[in-house]
């Protein structure tokens, strides 16, 4: 009893470890070892091998459940988006009207330039690699699992069965979001541009300045490796740079929209210009995406 000085015998002080205890600890060791073995095999061959195939079939088996759960949750999510969208609708409408006027003028100029470019390419017998969007077939699909706090990946409901392969670019209606890093028969894992390891060669279409798009602070990107003497202005559009050298093809073709320049400022201590980019795609609300499958195999 508590509060009384009960003298325990030697046996009571150290309770005998029963068979249950040993089995329990053995189970823990076995499970931890099994997890480590799986992790090692998976780490050594993340996108091929028997384990990858089994995982792919497992993911296909789980897909209907994920899709069902996502469909059940969708009305609630849509309702939330609708209500949150209403709060800023008036100011957004004004901003969008202003943008439409600007884009309309630019579209007319672009149409004329595009026509000229096609004629010049024909005259020069200009050969080029895959160009976006004409050389790609979009595989429209839904997102069935979303990025967590430690990983910046999503799972989409289409895989190798739809022609998706590793490194296939993935976009939303607004712009680039990432590329496929692991593909199963009916699902694929997409690593987002918000992943700390992601680096996409990009170009400022207004001034022709090139750099690397990396994750930046507070949901923005940084256009890295831009020389200090380069001219970049607020509002400039950033798109993928595409393949520059045939020997080193890029995952992304030229021209996939990424975002607009939010600010560009030199720093005394930094080697390069600090260019902050606001992404076109909304990474907090990824719903429907398109994987760009190349027509040229």
């Amino acid at each position, binding site marked *: 009893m*508590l509060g009384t000085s009960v003298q325990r015998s030697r046996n009571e002080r150290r309770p005998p470890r029963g068979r249950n205890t040993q089995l329990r600890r053995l189970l823990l060791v076995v499970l931890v070892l099994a997890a480590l073995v799986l992790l090692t095999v*998976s780490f050594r061959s993340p996108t091929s091998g028997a384990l990858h195939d089994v995982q792919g079939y497992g993911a296909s088996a789980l897909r209907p459940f994920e899709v069902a759960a996502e469909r059940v949750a969708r009305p609630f999510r849509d309702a939330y988006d609708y209500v949150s969208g209403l709060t800023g609708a008036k100011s957004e409408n004004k901003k969008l009207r202003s943008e439409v006027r600007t884009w309309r003028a630019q579209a007319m100029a672009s149409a004329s330039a595009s026509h000229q470019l096609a004629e010049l390419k024909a005259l020069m017998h200009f050969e080029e690699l895959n160009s976006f969007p004409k050389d790609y077939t979009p595989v429209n699909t839904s997102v069935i699992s979303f990025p967590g706090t430690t990983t910046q990946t999503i799972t989409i409901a289409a895989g190798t069965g739809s022609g998706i392969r590793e490194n296939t670019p993935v976009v939303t209606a607004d712009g680039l979001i990432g590329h496929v890093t692991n593909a199963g028969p009916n699902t694929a894992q997409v690593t987002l541009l918000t992943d700390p390891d992601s680096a996409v060669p990009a170009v400022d279409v207004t001034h022709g300045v090139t750099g690397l798009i990396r994750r930046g602070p507070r949901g923005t990107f940084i256009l890295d490796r831009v020389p200090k003497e380069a001219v970049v202005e607020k509002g400039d559009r950033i798109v993928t740079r595409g393949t520059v050298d045939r020997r080193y093809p890029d995952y992304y073709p030229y021209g996939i929209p990424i975002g607009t320049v939010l600010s560009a400022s030199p720093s005394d201590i930094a080697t390069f210009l600090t260019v902050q980019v606001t992404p076109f795609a909304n990474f907090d609300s990824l719903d429907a995406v398109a994987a760009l499958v190349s027509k040229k195999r």
Partner: protein
Amino acid sequence: MTVVDGLKAAALLFVAAILQVSIFTQARVLHGEPDVLLVTLVSVALLRGSVFGAAGGFFAGLLVDTATLAKLGLTSLVLTIAGYWIGRYGETTGRDRGHAPFLSVAVITVLYAFGLMIVHFVLGEPTAAGSVLKGLVPSIVLNLILVAPVYALVRRLLRPLDRGDYATEVHLLG
């Protein structure tokens, strides 16, 4: 503890894993996100002990890694240890205590986040430690909100055991 209990626990964890990867990862509030799978695992481990905790953690982790095409074994490793540890707490000091589920979930949320970060770090994979740390307190709060309904549901399906059924090494006096 019976086979039926095992099947019930497996079904609970399966549903929780599917809901977690499909719905709950999107419900982000102030950088934090609720983890219904972790809360379910803690509830199962508290009510059925370390064996169910460890096996359930392994199974649930495998489901998550399979569904998200992540590296197999990564989540299993962390959840197995978490399930075992909470199971031991349930078998010993945590039994019959009203605050045990809340305390367990708060502690495990922190350890799980750090555990995943450490495994990613050991594998040489990038992980945004800043956003994990920023979202830690909101995640704890969100998980604590989930504890009451989830624990009640799990308790309804897995009735608490008698003291003698727990695999315990602690001898109570008196």
